[in-house]
């Protein structure tokens, strides 16, 4: 780089001025890289053209943070050029459009704030948010996952929500992978797994928020790119949702001290995972849930005292982004005095204070007359706080440090970064022939699939998360002495209302066509929700993809987004929030495109919620939905290491009617037990129901709606839209009438003895004792 572009303005405090005016393209890129800004050439040029003066390092870092993928979703808001024309923003064109067109009156606030908000009962709203914390978890599994949970909890606090539940969905490499297969810089999946699970559990348990939903997936692809999704759900009185920061209000920072930790977390999440991640020490965040627990108390007390005019959390970009966003959303400006920030250590440069992502901090805007009462609450809760500065009408973000102005930027420019363009190529995926003999021994196939890490019991993990704390959990993630699985968590958040919140997820990264992969994930989230009694479901999307600068990655992203629109519309389920995490690439390659859909439904009376364990011998068993030869990417084929065949597709015209009828049957009280069919298909679902019960199941495959003549496909197909239902005996007619014209068949009975008996398509019987099912499933 040429001399003179970067100049030290002052040694102490360390401030640097960067003069972009004379900088050539190569210089611009080098400055971006050297300062860790992760800005592209067009972005650097836009800054260069805007300013007729040198910029301070504080200012350039502000751009680096605010214009990062994480903060502003540049790919999702940018233009995607395809062979068949340009798409003006994936978010606008697909995700938000579905919501806008569905126009549900119960959507209270969508895509706007830290979390999506939907109406609940008694004048309350439910807040929901799901985040990813992949890169930090790859570097420091415990701290990365724990601060992932901590961060998403603050998203809920950041809309004045009282957290009522958390969730986590985790994707790891195979735990038994050999060390020799790892690449330097990549930690062994076993190490990552232990740390991530411990981190998720530790933070949620410490905060006293029950973990009621999640999933765990193992695949070689995630060895280099661990995926950690953390969700949080909260409740608040509608009238407590206050966002009216005014000129003259004070910006008050509360919570943990600010230090060098988490610096450049944001820009770091916007580039590929570098090989030498060991050097990124400052990207490591040390969780301190004890402070966040006190923050939670303070937020609720300030809320209920109606003392503050606004709130937001400090996440990516730290103080710079939180203050900038709060001012910008209210059409205001702000002046911050960085001297007031309480620091963990000495010698922190002003730009570091400005962008540090130290955890457990919140920002309030407080009318000055309320400062005394507000600060008394903070002190009561043993929290440190400071006034950062005050809001004004300048629409500028200004910061001073030791008397010098170190940042002075117009918010309008800051919040309208140049739109980026991405190019997409359509990647065609066509089914390939499947070479697999039909096995003879169905029973041993079922047992071996149950012991597959992707199908087996999650009890060993789920029980390390408290799912009962707060005393409001109705349907538990695992249940009974054998820890069988339910499909969704149900929480009863209000003392004086029987209405419950139903939390579910859907994730199917193994179906090779991104469109159908997304469709199936969405449908599975709904299916899991409906299975326990949920309805009026709002959904959240979380994309984990590779480098969006690569045309194939963006091509599959586009297809997944198309499916999101199509199926959200078809099912009538609006997106209310979401997030994308791009640049998930490691020396071992790009992440497998992974879409998580989270469903948030309601149930009018939690006492009618349905669990998956069998209730009474003699009850009829019904199979809802059609079983097709859709096995590509299924747990069955993956466990055999076989590829090929067709993958599941979703037919919303049938699936939606089946779900609606099921909801009706649940409300009639005639559904005794229900389980959705997902990984491992009918075989896994029926086994899990037996595992959770004293009773057993008899299934006659020939009585089901099967468009296959192969027993293994009948039992392991992962066709969408299916449920296995125990109906209260005597209610068969009502049940069948409810499903008039739909693909529903009476396929068996609940047995007195704990066993799974399957009569196959050729009339042979296969018997699996509960003890054997349990042993395989639990892997003991």
């Amino acid at each position, binding site marked *: 780089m040429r001399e003179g572009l970067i100049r030290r303005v002052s040694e102490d405090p360390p401030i640097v001025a960067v003069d972009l005016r004379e900088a050539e393209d190569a210089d611009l890129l080098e400055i971006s890289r050297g300062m860790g800004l992760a800005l592209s050439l067009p972005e650097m040029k836009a800054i260069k053209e805007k300013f007729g003066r040198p910029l301070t390092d504080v200012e350039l870092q502000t751009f680096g943070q605010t214009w990062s993928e994480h903060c502003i979703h540049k790919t999702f808001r940018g233009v995607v050029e395809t062979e068949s024309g340009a798409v003006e923003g994936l978010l606008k064109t697909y995700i938000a459009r579905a919501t806008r067109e569905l126009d549900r009156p119960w959507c209270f606030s969508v895509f706007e704030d830290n979390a999506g908000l939907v109406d609940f009962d008694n004048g309350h709203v439910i807040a929901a948010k799901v985040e990813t914390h992949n890169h930090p978890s790859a570097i420091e599994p*415990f701290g990365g996952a724990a601060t992932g949970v901590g961060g998403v909890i603050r998203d809920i606090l950041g809309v004045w929500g009282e957290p009522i539940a958390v969730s986590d969905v985790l994707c790891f490499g195979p735990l038994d992978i050999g060390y020799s297969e790892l690449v330097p810089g990549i930690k062994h999946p076993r*190490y990552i797994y232990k*740390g991530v699970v411990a981190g998720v559990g530790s933070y949620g348990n410490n905060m006293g928020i029950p973990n009621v939903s999640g999933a765990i997936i193992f695949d070689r692809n995630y060895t280099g790119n661990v995926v950690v999704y953390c969700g949080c759900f909260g409740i608040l009185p509608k009238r407590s949702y206050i966002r009216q920061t005014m000129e003259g209000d004070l910006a008050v920072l509360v919570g943990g001290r600010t*230090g060098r930790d988490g610096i450049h977390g944001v820009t770091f999440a916007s580039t590929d995972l570098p090989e030498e991640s060991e050097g990124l*020490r400052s990207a490591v965040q040390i969780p301190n849930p004890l402070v966040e627990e006190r923050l939670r108390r303070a937020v609720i007390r300030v809320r209920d005292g109606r003392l503050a005019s606004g709130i937001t959390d400090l996440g990516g970009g730290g103080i710079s982004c939180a203050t900038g966003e709060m001012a910008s959303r209210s059409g205001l400006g702000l002046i911050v005095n960085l001297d007031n920030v309480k620091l963990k250590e000495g010698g922190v440069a002003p730009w570091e204070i400005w962008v540090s992502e130290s955890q457990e901090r919140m920002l309030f805007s407080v009318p000055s007359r309320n400062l005394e009462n507000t600060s008394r609450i903070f002190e009561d809760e043993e929290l440190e706080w400071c006034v950062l500065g005050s809001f004004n009408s300048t629409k500028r973000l200004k910061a001073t440090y030791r008397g010098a102005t170190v940042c002075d930027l117009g918010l309008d420019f800051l919040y309208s970064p140049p739109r980026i363009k991405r190019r997409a190529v359509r990647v065609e995926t066509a089914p390939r022939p499947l070479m697999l003999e039909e096995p003879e021994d169905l029973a041993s196939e079922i047992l071996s699939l149950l012991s597959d890490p992707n199908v087996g019991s999650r009890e060993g993990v789920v029980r390390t998360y408290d799912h009962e704390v707060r005393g409001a959990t109705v349907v538990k993630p695992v249940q009974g002495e054998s820890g069988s699985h339910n499909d969704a968590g149900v929480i009863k958040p209000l003392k004086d209302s029987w209405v419950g919140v139903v939390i579910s997820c859907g994730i199917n990264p193994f179906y090779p066509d991104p469109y159908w992969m997304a469709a199936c994930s969405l449908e599975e989230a709904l299916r899991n929700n409906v299975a326990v009694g949920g309805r009026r479901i709002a959904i959240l999307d979380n994309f984990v993809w590779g480098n969006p600068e690569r045309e194939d990655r963006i091509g599959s992203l586009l297809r997944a987004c198309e499916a999101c629109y199509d199926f959200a519309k078809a099912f009538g389920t609006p997106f209310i929030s979401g997030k994308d995490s791009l640049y998930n690439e490691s020396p071992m390659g790009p992440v497998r495109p992974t879409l998580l859909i989270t469903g948030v439904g309601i149930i009018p009376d939690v006492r009618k919620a349905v669990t998956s364990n069998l209730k009474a011998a003699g009850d009829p068993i019904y199979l809802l939905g059609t079983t097709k030869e859709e096995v590509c990417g299924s747990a069955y084929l993956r466990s055999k290491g076989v590829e090929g065949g067709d993958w599941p597709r979703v037919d919303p015209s049938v699936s939606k009617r089946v779900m609606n009828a099921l909801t009706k049957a649940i409300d009639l009280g005639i559904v005794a037990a229900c389980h959705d069919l997902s990984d491992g298909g009918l075989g896994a679902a029926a086994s899990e129901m037996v595992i959770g019960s004293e009773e057993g199941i008899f299934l006659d495959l020939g009585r089901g709606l099967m468009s296959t003549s192969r027993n293994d496909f009948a039992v392991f197909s992962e066709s969408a839209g299916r449920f296995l239902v125990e109906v209260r005996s005597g209610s068969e007619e009502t049940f069948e009438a409810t499903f008039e014209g739909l693909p529903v068949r009476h396929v068996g009975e609940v047995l007195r003895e704990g066993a799974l008996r399957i009569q196959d398509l050729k009339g042979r019987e296969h018997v699996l004792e509960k003890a054997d099912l349990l042993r395989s499933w639990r892997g003991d």
Partner: protein
Amino acid sequence: MMFLVKAEVGLKRGHFDPEGDVVAKSLRDLGFSVGSVRVSKAYTIEVDARDAAEAKALAEEMCRKLLANPTKDDFMVEVLLIEGRTD
């Protein structure tokens, strides 16, 4: 031969130690006059090795692979004694 090795793993300097902070405050509350406190974990491990040098090297590898995260932790390994002998 069995060696007894102690591996101590703690946060690198510069990282704030929430546990140490709580301990320091609690000690002050009990009337002690203390400055900062840092908390680390010590693993006392029986290691099968040919000699003390190998035992130490093995323990260091255990730290790198499992007990510590070099990104945030420092570790220190010390061979305590050869099993059965205390010299």
